[in-house]
């Protein structure tokens, strides 16, 4: 069977109350012309005309090869096997998971079972999150982070219950974990069905290419701004907000406060800021210092630690020499209410920060040099054996030397599927890979990729 003929499968995840059921009902009742076979996590909760709805009792099979992450859904193997006998009655499959479910076993089912791998293709994992509660969930539950890490599409739902600053903060936090994920803001899970169903293998290349921010390394700071300061004392205000998502794993967090560094910048524009990024990384590597009782900070070769107690929100920035300065801040100003009285920044930049959410992050690699197929196979094989448990998802397109077609792959934990697909067009050849997981070793992944160059 050709890959194009495989039946697309959408996996729907999300906590109870996120709006997952609302989305499911919308998909089932909307006039979109698609015939969907829905596999629900319970028997017949919703009665729906014209659609095939099947109840499933979640049953996890561990494989006997001893790998604890090789879990699959036995019930899905059976149900999907039955569905194949009626495949002319539907165009795509939608699988709803229970609220706290780890999406891994569902996704892995499509890799481990050869029959299903031939007949179905995992089109996308769609995670619905509740804008009002997701931050709290991320702080206390690993499952919330994992559902986001696995997703191809996130519906940021119930946006009426969060303000713009919170939505932006959530989106950054989601992207910090899962860089290539597409986020759609929704009210009542109202979204055109073609944003979540049958994305055509979610047009992997476009997903990987759209947001190049995942190609950036991660930084110990989330934001920097360049200011022109006259000599003297400037007032630095924090709006009393305690950092919304401090995390113990963060090396710069000792007491739930905020770290920032002040460096001289060579020019009052974006290039002046860029020039100070690397020096700022070195500054942040130093032990942070608490200001003394005068609450005064100065440009220094170490970061300052500003406790964010409610009774202390004003600090003095003392500048000796007129000039341009860059302030690098652990969190974005919108999150912590940072501002400099009477001075606006002349340039700013947001950074991907590395310290959030159970150390879940993404590593992207882009390279225009072709790779050797055998070397790639060896590398993936080693990588999945040794790091498969921590790699939630990997996906990408490779330019294989001597091959006219794109090699498109994706994987879940230790499971992997790769095939040659469309031919490359003129000037298009470029390899793009992304890994999403826990405690990923960026340098190691980059070195691994370089070892595959043809």
């Amino acid at each position, binding site marked *: 069977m050709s890959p194009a003929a495989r039946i697309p499968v959408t996996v729907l995840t999300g906590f109870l109350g996120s709006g997952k059921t609302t989305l499911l009902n919308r998909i089932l009742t909307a006039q979109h012309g698609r015939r969907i076979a829905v596999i629900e996590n319970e028997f017949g909760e919703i009665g729906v005309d014209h659609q095939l709805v*099947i109840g499933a*009792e979640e049953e996890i099979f561990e*494989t006997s090869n001893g790998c604890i992450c090789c879990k699959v859904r036995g019930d899905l193997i059976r149900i999907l096997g039955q569905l194949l*006998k009626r495949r002319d009655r539907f165009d795509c499959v939608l699988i709803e998971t229970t609220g706290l479910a780890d999406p891994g076993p569902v996704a892995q089912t499509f890799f481990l*079972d*050869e*029959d299903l791998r031939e007949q179905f293709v995992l089109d996308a994992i769609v995670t619905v999150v509740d804008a009002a509660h997701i931050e709290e969930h991320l702080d206390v539950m690993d499952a919330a982070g994992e559902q986001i890490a696995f997703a191809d599409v996130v519906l940021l739902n119930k946006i009426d219950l969060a303000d713009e600053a919170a939505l932006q903060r959530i989106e950054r936090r989601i992207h910090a974990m899962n860089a290539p994920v597409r986020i759609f803001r929704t009210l009542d899970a109202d979204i055109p069905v073609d944003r979540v169903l049958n994305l055509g293998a979610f047009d992997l290349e476009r997903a990987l290419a759209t947001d190049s921010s995942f190609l950036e390394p991660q930084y110990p700071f989330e934001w920097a701004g360049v200011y022109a300061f006259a000599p003297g004392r400037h007032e630095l205000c924090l709006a009393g907000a305690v950092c919304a998502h401090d995390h113990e794993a963060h090396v710069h967090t000792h007491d739930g406060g905020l770290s920032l560094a002040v460096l001289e910048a060579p020019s009052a524009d974006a290039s002046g800021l860029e020039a100070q990024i690397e020096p700022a990384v070195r500054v942040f590597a130093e032990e942070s210092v608490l200001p003394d009782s005068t609450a005064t900070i100065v440009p220094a070769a170490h970061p300052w630690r500003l406790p964010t107690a409610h009774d202390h929100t004003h600090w003095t920035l003392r500048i000796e020499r007129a000039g341009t300065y860059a302030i690098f801040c652990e969190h974005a100003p919108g999150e912590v209410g940072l501002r400099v009285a009477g001075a606006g920044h002349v340039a700013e930049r947001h950074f991907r920060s590395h310290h959030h959410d159970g150390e879940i992050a993404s590593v992207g690699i882009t390279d225009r040099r072709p790779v050797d197929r055998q070397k790639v196979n060896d590398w993936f094989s080693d990588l999945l054996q040794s790091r498969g448990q921590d790699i939630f998802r990997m996906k990408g397109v490779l330019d294989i030397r001597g091959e006219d077609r794109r090699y498109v792959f994706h994987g879940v934990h230790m499971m992997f599927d790769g095939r040659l697909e469309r031919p490359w067009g003129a000037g298009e050849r470029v390899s793009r890979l992304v890994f999403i997981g826990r405690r990923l070793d960026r340098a190691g992944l980059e070195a691994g990729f370089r070892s595959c160059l043809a």
Partner: protein
Amino acid sequence: MAPSAILESRASVELDDYIIDCAWSPDGRSLAVVCSEGTVHLCEFGERESCVHELGMHALGALAVAWQPGGARFASAGQDGTTAIWDAGAHRGEHVRFRPGRSVVEALAFSPDGRWLAAASGRVVALWSTEGERLHEFAPAEGVIAALAWDRPGRDLIAATKGGLLAHRIEPPRFTTRRYARPGACLTAAPSPNGKVLATGTQDGSVHFWYLSSGRAGEMRGYGTKVQLTAWSSNGRYLATGAGADVVVWDFAGKGPEGSRPLQLCGHTERIETLAFQPGGPWLVSGGRDWRVMLWLPGRATTPVDVQLGDAEATVARFSPDGRFVAVGQRNGRLAFYALLPP
């Protein structure tokens, strides 16, 4: 000399829907057939003419059918969660219908004496009379029951599930269960007809077996994919297994199959969907997604003795009780009858 025999096409009927399963009547004159949309049919098969009666439905689709040994009734099960008993005699039609559990019923098996119908619903197996009375329900298994089979004397009912095989011993009013454990998911239940061995195919691409006299367990690996079909020769010597497009046969003569090389029957080019050994005879029939039905003689040849090309994927093949005919169901709803003509 290569063996020679042929499958000779005799008749066919059109049911216009994917044939899920079929079961012969004990006299070999009728077949109960269930289809993916849920219809239940009775096909009466004559040398000159065949006729089809549609007896009823399982809403959302049918999953299994089994004929009562020595009787004129058969049972069917479906996605609607019900099991129906059908009368195939003078009062043709639905006799009784019941709901064995909360879940879908995926496996049915009549005891060899025809008294009890075992039905698996989710993790639960229960025994029923053909009047719909429940004799006994066994404690829920660790996982969903994937397959059921009785041993030849009808004393043990074997259930395949996650984590091993369960052998339910039925000596009313005593009911006991023995567990044959292995990690992973067991997909088939295959007690050997000579009563010596229990075998199962697994999701992990292996075959496990236990010698019943000693309890000794063995395992055969090396399959590229899950082993979803197992069938014993009637003398209990050969265990035919199907995984992907491969038919692999293990010889249990002498010291058994461990360490031996299996017979690899080469012919199918796509996944096989069905395997059946001839009752009382040496012939093996397989059918697959390559639209072919193949006749084999394990132990004598590893190439097919005969190949019949259908006009759609073969989904199920069943020998008649006397071993002289084979019914083959196809994806497109055609049910074909072949006579097995030996050399």
